[in-house]
């Protein structure tokens, strides 16, 4: 077979934008004639005369977007070990269930009596998630993980106010935390205090003690941490924060490791969010939609956002606002289409399945850790949970960026790079439980080959990838003179 470049001239042509394909008179839709007596349109001054949308036929649209899709890596096509994102396989039955007309066609403002089946799904999912986390109540309202964080921290704020402690302003956040944590704390009106980690990768309890005063509102904590470790100081940290009158927010980004193995409530968390698009297999969609429900203990339950599903004595379901709810975070009661996929997933896996998920996810991560140790520095010499964080410093001349880009050439998506910030040249690898040993072995073999390339020809690595639909992008150019849309002038 001839050695064609991966993107042919024809395929490049297929990348013309919709407006560049537009030809006057074409359409991609068949619409009815008006079958009612015509009313006069309003005064022309109110009407639009310049609608500039593309004019393309259905076949052209289908070929265009199909071609575009083929420029993507995805879980359906590639191993996608993007750390902290839990890129597990997304079961197809989830899609089929979410598309049932009785769910997809249901309007959110219909009276509850017309939506008993959907409300039962919400009610049961609330209970399932509360059980998994060891909490008292669940709000399915938050539309994504970051909004779950917002919901959780606003809930803490409301609970502190109810205690007469609304003046507390200090929110502790470990230096390993995802950027959403401090961003959320700031949106909620708190002042962020960064807490360092110990050399073993646990939170520094002395640093927590030093902040445990009358201004302490709480802590935002990810367990397992973004280092892929179960933080052995976290139980004590929760105790210290509670003792000082603060509350503990749990970031559930890494719940995949803990399913059936430990519950966030008994570990000392007061409220926790879950990423259904990570732990519970709903597809990531190229960057959403997700869902970020929160689960809260008895004290915080009255404050969670609403409306949530409730059931009366006769078994009828309804929507209701929790007693002292922080209110609405969107026009509806959650991303139902995402929630139903998670409900489907939990139902198909069941109780034992939860243990299968966490057990195999953690085993796969530890297997990669054991096999990849010869290639990379391991900043923390201990067993990992669902993911392993390496430093690419071991091989002189290799960088996390170059290794990642070369992985793309070999058909593997890159790990998360340069995060967490406390590990230099970080490579954060999360295999998930849905990858086979053969896939992991192939990944290891490719990394060994890349390591050899880094030793023999670092410059070759520095310009990778070579086989992908696009090569390295000029990101500085994009940011210096932003071109953010098609325009007739720019065309």
């Amino acid at each position: 077979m001839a050695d064609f470049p991966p993107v042919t001239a024809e395929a490049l042509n297929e990348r013309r934008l919709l407006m560049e394909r537009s030809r006057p008179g074409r359409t991609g839709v068949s619409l009815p004639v008006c079958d009612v007596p015509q009313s006069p349109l309003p005064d022309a001054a109110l009407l639009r005369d310049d609608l500039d949308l593309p004019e393309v036929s259905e076949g052209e649209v289908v070929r265009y977007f199909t071609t575009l899709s083929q420029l993507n890596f995805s879980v359906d096509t590639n191993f996608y070990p993007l750390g902290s994102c839990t890129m597990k396989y997304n079961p197809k039955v989830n899609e089929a269930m979410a598309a049932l007309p009785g769910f997809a066609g249901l309007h959110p403002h219909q009276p509850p009596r017309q939506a008993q089946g959907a409300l039962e799904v919400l009610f049961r999912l609330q209970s399932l998630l509360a059980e998994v986390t060891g909490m008292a109540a669940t709000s399915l309202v938050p539309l994504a993980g970051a909004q779950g964080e917002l919901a959780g921290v606003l809930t803490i704020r409301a609970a502190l106010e109810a205690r007469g402690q609304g003046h507390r302003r200090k929110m502790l956040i470990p230096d390993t935390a995802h950027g959403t944590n401090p961003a959320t704390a700031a949106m909620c009106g708190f002042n962020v205090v960064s807490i360092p980690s110990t050399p073993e990768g646990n939170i520094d309890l002395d640093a927590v003690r030093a902040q445990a005063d009358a201004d302490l509102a709480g802590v935002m904590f990810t367990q397992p941490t973004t280092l892929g470790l179960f933080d052995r100081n976290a139980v004590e940290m929760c105790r210290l924060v509670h003792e000082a009158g603060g509350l503990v927010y749990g970031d559930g980004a890494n719940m995949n490791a803990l399913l059936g193995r430990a519950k966030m409530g008994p570990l000392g968390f007061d409220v926790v969010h879950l990423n259904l698009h990570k732990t519970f297999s709903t597809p990531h969609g190229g960057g959403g939609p997700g869902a970020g429900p929160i689960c809260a203990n008895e004290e915080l339950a009255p404050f969670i956002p609403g409306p949530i599903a409730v059931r009366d004595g006769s078994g009828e379901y309804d929507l209701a606002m929790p007693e002292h709810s922080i209110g609405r975070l969107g026009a509806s009661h959650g991303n139902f289409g995402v929630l139903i996929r998670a409900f489907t997933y939990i139902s198909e896996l069941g109780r034992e399945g939860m243990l299968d998920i966490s057990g195999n996810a953690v085993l796969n991560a530890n297997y990669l850790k054991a096999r990849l140790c010869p290639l990379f520095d391991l900043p923390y010499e201990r067993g990992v949970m669902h993911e392993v964080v390496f430093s690419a410093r071991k091989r002189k001349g290799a960088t996390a960026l170059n290794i990642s880009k070369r992985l793309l050439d070999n058909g593997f998506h890159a790990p998360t790079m340069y995060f967490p910030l406390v590990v230099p040249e970080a490579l954060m690898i999360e295999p998930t439980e849905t990858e086979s040993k053969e896939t992991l072995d192939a990944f290891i073999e490719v990394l060994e080959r890349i390591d050899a390339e880094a030793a023999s020809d670092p410059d070759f690595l520095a310009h990778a990838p070579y086989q992908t639909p696009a090569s390295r992008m000029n990101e500085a150019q994009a940011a210096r003179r932003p071109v953010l849309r098609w325009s007739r002038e720019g065309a």
Partner: protein
Amino acid sequence: MAETGLRSPFIPNTPEDRAVMLAAVGAGSVEELFADIPAEHRHPPLALPEALDEMALRREMEALAARNLAPGASASFLGAGVYHHFCPSAVAPLVTRGEFLTSYTPYQPEVSQGTLQGSYEFQSLTAQLFGMEVSNAGMYDGASALAEAALMACRVTGHARVALTNTVNPRYVDTVRAYTAPQGIEVYTVDAAAPALEPETAALLAQYPNFLGVIEDAQAQSDAAHAAGALYCLSADPVAQALFKPAGAFGADIATGEGQALGVPASFGGPYVGIFTCKREHIRQLPGRIVGRTTDAQGRTGYVLTLQPREQHIRREHATSNICTSTALVGLWATVYMALMGKQGLRRVAELCYQKAHYAASRIGELPGYGLPVPGTFFQEFVVYCPTAPDRVNRALEAEGIVGGLDVSDQVPNGMLLCINETHTRADIDRLVAVLKGVR
């Protein structure tokens, strides 16, 4: 324990695989890998149901779905921010392709050009539809987009007070309040017809058409906002933009919208996509993901996430928002819908909405006991005065398999907000009218 047998089709490791891997790890069992969890917290009781096989699962889910009244768009007359519009058959199979469905945020642009170019198209088409200069790649939904607009206006102006007109969707008002309160931002309400702004107001927030379906004088609102030194933020219906003057024509500084109207299933509340557009001068205060055009090492046009220092992963507590998602897949749905509809199709859909709604309004207005109490130009929604409580009317419709309008009797006595659009034939509307006629 769960190490024996193959219970799940989603987990490939066999017991033999696990044995080999445990040996490589140097562990005796999977349990050992969880030793860092304090023993008293490890393996707590877990009261979850047993696993269902796929056939049993489908039976159960189909039974649950059957307990909902979802008669299809032709027999539904409920809108109030979420609309059953016709969606061409080509949309779903394209958007649900695995390459779009199961990828993630395009951190590696070399292998994410499909998602990135799709988002660039979304930004292009929504900006054009709203008549605005720039758009981001998408927000959660229309309500949270308006709330983020309020926060952005406060950043742009340095003020901490926003005005909402009295005709904005109450659910949107609640969302704006939940987002702004923790930052000490004051929210007050003004008359949509004559907005009187207090000094140092960051923004006037309005809705177009308003919650009760009426097209307001957006130019007068915009002038009032600008005269007071405030930004004008308009939450606009995307389909209405194809018929009526778009947000940009009134000098809106920020225009948001609920992208669900662009053919996205109602799906009992989500997922939807928030549209967020603004004037170019404000791009560094935009929340959320933005895709920009650039070139790759070989000089070929390509797309990347850009202006990232605004965002939480870099600026952390100083970010413009904590949002990470662009709800890319729903944005793609809206994009493919707009591509198929195009210039002629979307205008035609909007005109059909207008015509069908006006036919229905004139028929219902003639019925004894009914009336049209809210004056003004409307698009696809209008308030009907009912001869009895709207809930009674809705129950009568329900008995005929029809989903009625939203009960707005808290705003208009015996008021019901009805939505009639391109999905309704004359026969559908006549059937609605016939049932209404029988309700006293």
